[in-house]
């Protein structure tokens, strides 16, 4: 039986809460474990009911459509857009970790705009203006250090 992705998410949450409940039993004091046991127990109960409903509804859909639904073009497009958006986001975080916040920001802004049809001048100028504003905000407004990244921390 094919399970919907929403049900996988719910199963993951239930496993997580089962771990939380188990781990909280090892806490030394009653005050430490009470609310975790309470919340975890309630979530496990509600989650089990919700999962049962979802699986039953899924079974009903399969019976009426005789064999299940295939992936549509819209579904494939959505999956591609999800991967693209997640990819850029994760890539930006990795870039920040390695190259530092300002460099990664400039690269992601210029690269994304360029890839989505902006002219070179527009992409680069948007990147420069954004990081200039951020630099001024951090240095003079917040008086906070900007993350330099693993590579540049090592170099300087």
């Amino acid at each position, binding site marked *: 039986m094919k399970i919907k992705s929403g049900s996988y998410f719910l199963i993951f949450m239930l496993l997580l809460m089962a771990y939380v409940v188990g781990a909280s039993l090892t806490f030394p004091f009653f005050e430490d474990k009470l609310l975790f046991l309470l919340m975890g127990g309630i979530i496990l109960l*509600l989650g089990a009911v919700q999962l049962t409903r979802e699986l039953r509804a899924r079974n009903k859909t399969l019976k009426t459509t005789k064999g299940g639904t295939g992936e549509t073009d819209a579904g494939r497009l959505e999956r591609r857009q999800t991967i693209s958006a997640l990819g850029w986001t994760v890539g930006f975080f990795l870039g920040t970790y390695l190259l530092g916040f300002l460099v990664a920001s400039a690269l992601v802004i210029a690269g994304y705009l360029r890839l989505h049809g902006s002219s070179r001048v527009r992409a680069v100028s948007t990147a420069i203006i954004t990081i200039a504003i951020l630099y001024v905000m*951090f240095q003079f407004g917040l008086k906070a250090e900007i993350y330099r990244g693993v590579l540049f921390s090592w170099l300087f």
Partner: protein
Amino acid sequence: MPDMLEAFGTGFVTLFQPPVLLAMFVGVILGVVIGIIPGIGSIFGIAVLMPFVYRMPPETAMGFLVALASVTFTAGSIPAILLSIPGTALNVATMLDGFPMTRKGQGAQAIGAALTASMFGGVISAFLALLMMPLIVPMVMVMRTPELAVLILTGLVFMATLTGSSVLKGLISGFFGIALALVGLQGQTGTLRFTFGIVQLYEGINIVTLVLGIYGIGSLLEVMVLGQTTLSESPVKTPFKSMFQGARAVWHHKGIWFRSTVVGYLIGILPGVGGQLACFMAYGQAKQTSKHPEKFGTGVIEGVIAPESANNAKTGGDLLTTMAFGIPGAPDMAVMLGAFFMVGVVPGPSMMKEHLPLAFTLLWGVAFANIIATLICFATTPPLARIARVPISTLFPIILVVVVAGSFALKVSMFYAFLVLLFGVLGFLMTRFDYSRPALILGFVLGELFERYLFYALKLHGPFFFLTPISLVLIAIMILLFTHRHIKVLYRSLFRGNAKNA
């Protein structure tokens, strides 16, 4: 009463301190920009800008955020009317008659009416909230730890049942939020809970990190996946003369405007009820009381005045409930609640006792922000209308950078950025699978307080602490919330059954 009058006056005077005034003015400008860009919304704006104000004094920080939250719906009416794209979710009802008016060449009139109705709605609801404060404060002082513990649970149940389509999923989100709040050092016993040896987690998860992830990254990913873009590329003319004609029309239809304001304010007071209900109810009552209800939907100015009055009027009610009871009146107030905690103010009885002047300052601020926003929008509608046509794909990298900048504004550590990413993915998945994000945020914000009240209630009153009159009323409300749909179905089947038999 003298304390109340003193706080009322102090709150008004504080509004005009230069830092507070400047912060509110900047909040209004940013609120207008955020409101006019479709898909962003006040929740996202508060989430992203919270880290940048946390070092400010409470009056300045909260003044900025309240001003921002109060005016996004005002500016959101502009793309709703001109481009048929609501700037925020609360401008959907405005689109029903606003865009048809644009098609008829009356777009400028519609905008003038929308902006004026928004301003009056926001100002009147702020005054209603100010007047109700002397009644609310004594009610709040009666609450002790058992009532407060049950009240928090009631607020969570409200939020969980009224946001999202599934009650169970809403409750799962809310209780998961409470569990997240308990990560870190337990205040009374000193036990480290679920820190996994990570030093940054000893203080627990920061509300800003959570909100930046759940709403900042989460909403951004959702908008990108949905492929939201603007629809209209053609310029729209908005002459001032027509806009002022629209403003005058609000006075001609003052009955509709006033009734819609009251509807919006009363709905705003109810915890967990979103503003969309207020807008559609106001639209519905305007249609029902009109001499020509059949014309609604074809481009009548009453169809713009009603929802726009209501969506701004709800802010006063939302804020009053949030500050007085610590229970947010709407999803954006759940995030605002986090902001209150961030600046060291605990909404509820504690705020009414120790920070009453601040509560009055913020309500005065709602009135002030609405007036300034309307003036700004009147003056700048043509260029603002152009901002609404900026594609989301262009804004994506800039917003992503600003969100991560927000995580660094707190503490410069990749760990917090990593947490923002993790919560961002969680927020995105929650939206995809219809789990209530406001319920998660509310559970998180109130989690520690709930634990403290629960323990004190158990220690002082034993396991049956909830058997007090106020607690029992709140429990009855919770049961009603769970069962009202089933009761309705039962009533209908009984009633229909009897009618058939008769």
